[in-house]
């Protein structure tokens, strides 16, 4: 029987006895090492050669050895648990390999094409075999910037209005509209390009232009913005809306002056994600915008370059310099996407601490 009148006792240090002990950790490492050794042996003894069989065999052996270790130690449930753990870890590793490869390739091959002139020159004076330090992708940057901006001007209001319809008004068509937004996000980008071609380019303008590309991009942007904005608006607590209405505000004032400002950073996130979604889209641009070598500031007439088109064209020239230009373009594009991605993440984590 304990009572609190005993004198001060020393408080022991907090421990986590469930964490794997040193012995358990080294056993796990031993399993891995054993698997690698076994597969080396098999590779040496059979006609199978190369990195791929080694990795596959290591994986298989790791699963088997993990199973046996569990079986000997504790029983079949632990054995299965071990095997599954190894298997899931392998799956994760396989998923990460393409990412690592893509990043490595883009950086190592695109790096060579980076130079200061890249940002300032276009390709109007250069041929495909000119050395890399000449020419640049200024026209592509300008084109992407203009097209994405126009697309944003169209898609941002429509996307946010859709989100407002779904969360604030919750009209009769809410369920169909939500389904349609989902369906729209599945529209292939080339179909969006074809649509603009068939609806506007063919009957009316009959030429390439940056505006057409922007229109196609806006179709792809709207669902992304609408979905993200809807999620964000749903997070705004109802108390805010009730406060606005209780003060005598009309619905539109409540939404415009209370809800939307509260959701501001989330809406900016939606915008950034929309931009990231379309900045690399190639197919519709190939169909309706073309892309010259000279910079074109006018979205209404004439082909307008863009980063994806620049990359596409460079690679199809096939010369070594052009190929390097292509990788450099991909590196620039990838950097934009990564920057936008982290921007969106930082914003959305800040939003939580309102």
């Amino acid at each position: 029987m304990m009572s609190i009148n005993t004198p001060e006792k020393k408080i022991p240090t907090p421990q986590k006895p469930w964490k794997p002990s040193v012995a358990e950790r080294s056993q796990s490492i031993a399993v891995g090492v054993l698997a690698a050794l076994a597969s080396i042996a098999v590779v040496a003894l059979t006609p199978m050669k190369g990195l791929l069989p080694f990795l596959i065999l290591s994986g298989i052996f790791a699963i088997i050895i993990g199973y046996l270790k569990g079986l000997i130690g504790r029983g079949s449930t632990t054995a299965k648990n071990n095997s599954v753990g190894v298997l899931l870890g392998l799956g994760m590793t396989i998923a990460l390999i393409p990412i690592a490869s893509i990043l490595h390739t883009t950086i190592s091959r695109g790096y060579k094409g980076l130079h200061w002139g890249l940002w300032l020159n276009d390709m109007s004076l250069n041929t495909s075999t000119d050395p890399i330090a000449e020419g640049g992708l200024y026209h592509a940057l300008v084109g992407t910037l203009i097209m994405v901006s126009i697309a944003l001007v169209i898609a941002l209001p429509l996307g946010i209005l859709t989100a407002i319809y779904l969360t604030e008004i919750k009209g009769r068509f809410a369920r169909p509209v939500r389904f349609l937004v989902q369906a729209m996000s599945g529209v292939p980008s080339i179909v969006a390009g074809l649509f603009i071609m068939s609806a506007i380019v063919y009957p009316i303008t009959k030429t390439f232009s940056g505006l057409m590309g922007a229109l196609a991009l806006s179709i792809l942007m709207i669902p992304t913005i609408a979905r993200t904005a809807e999620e964000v608006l749903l997070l705004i607590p109802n108390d805010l809306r009730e406060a606005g209405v209780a003060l005598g505000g009309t619905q539109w004032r409540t939404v415009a002056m209370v809800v939307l400002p509260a959701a501001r950073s989330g809406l900016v996130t939606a915008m950034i994600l929309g931009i990231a979604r379309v900045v690399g889209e190639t197919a519709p641009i190939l169909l309706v915008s073309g892309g010259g070598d000279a910079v074109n500031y006018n979205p209404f007439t004439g082909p307008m370059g863009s980063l994806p088109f620049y990359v596409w064209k460079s690679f199809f020239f096939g010369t070594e310099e052009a190929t390097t230009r292509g990788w450099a373009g991909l590196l620039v594009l990838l950097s934009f996407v990564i920057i936008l991605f982290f921007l969106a993440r930082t914003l959305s984590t800040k939003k939580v601490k309102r």
Partner: protein
Amino acid sequence: MATSEIQRERRPIPAPRTITTEPRLSDKVFRGVVTAGGLSSLLILGLIAIFLLYQGYEVLVEEGFSFITSSAWEVITDEYGEVQSYSFGIAAMLVGTLLCALIAVVVAVPIAVASALFITFYAQGKLKAFLVAVIDLMAAFPSILFGFWGFFILMPKAEYWAMLLNKYLGWIPLFAVDDRIFTRPPFLAGLVLATMIIPITTAIAREVFDQTPLDRIQAAYALGATKWAMIRNVAIPYGRGGVVGGAMLGLGRAMGETVAVYTVLNIVYQINWQILFGAGGNVASLILLKFGEAKPLEIKGLMAAGLALFVLTLLVNFIADFIVRRTGSKGR
């Protein structure tokens, strides 16, 4: 009351009043504007269907059912460039689209589910945050990047793997080849597409598994379950619908991809089921290939093809939505 029992007057219960408000003009305008904006997606989808149909109508009427059953795609002109006859059929391309997309899903879904389970239940702390960020980042990569990475990096390896598969498993009809041409087979396109849809499917599956109710997980552990037993009996039954939905979304994405596979696909006007053989195609790549030099008539054929692709992806998305919705309520 004189009687010993108290009798209460029974008043009839009134019917509930219907409450109405007459919104102010500004609100009416607001609702109108927002509703119009909300219905914009309906409008756009409708317009897409209408215009593609309008442009492709002539070809569809002329070809009839053979548009989707025949594989020939040619325009025969005489010496003056006048069109004499034409034949548009996208059967080979449809089969190719499905085949590449299916390969992608078969390869990607197990990897995605394994990764999602690993991230949710095995990774902790900083590792988990890192993996989530990496997967979400990769889902944002532009498809043109996958296309050229696939061409330069994956293609040589994939050809070697295709040869290996054919050598050891060639007795399975799927892996047999009529001619030993392994360059740019559907198998390779499927692999590139798989790397594209792994991040998307993983992200969706991870979100679903993350929401597995904690009380069920604790109940399983309290009964002496190992981690795998818990995953198998609690997490997977819970997440099944969401995972299937995510897989179908990936399927839809894979079917509509153009630039990711254009570089690694050989377009051959013949239905080809042998995934290791370098012949195939898909509808989107066909459109891209042909539109540059297409005469107006062929453009109409391409529009019809685009319509077919549109309908197909819409259908897949519809089914995905249905599955997620249906398995959502039962067993959850």
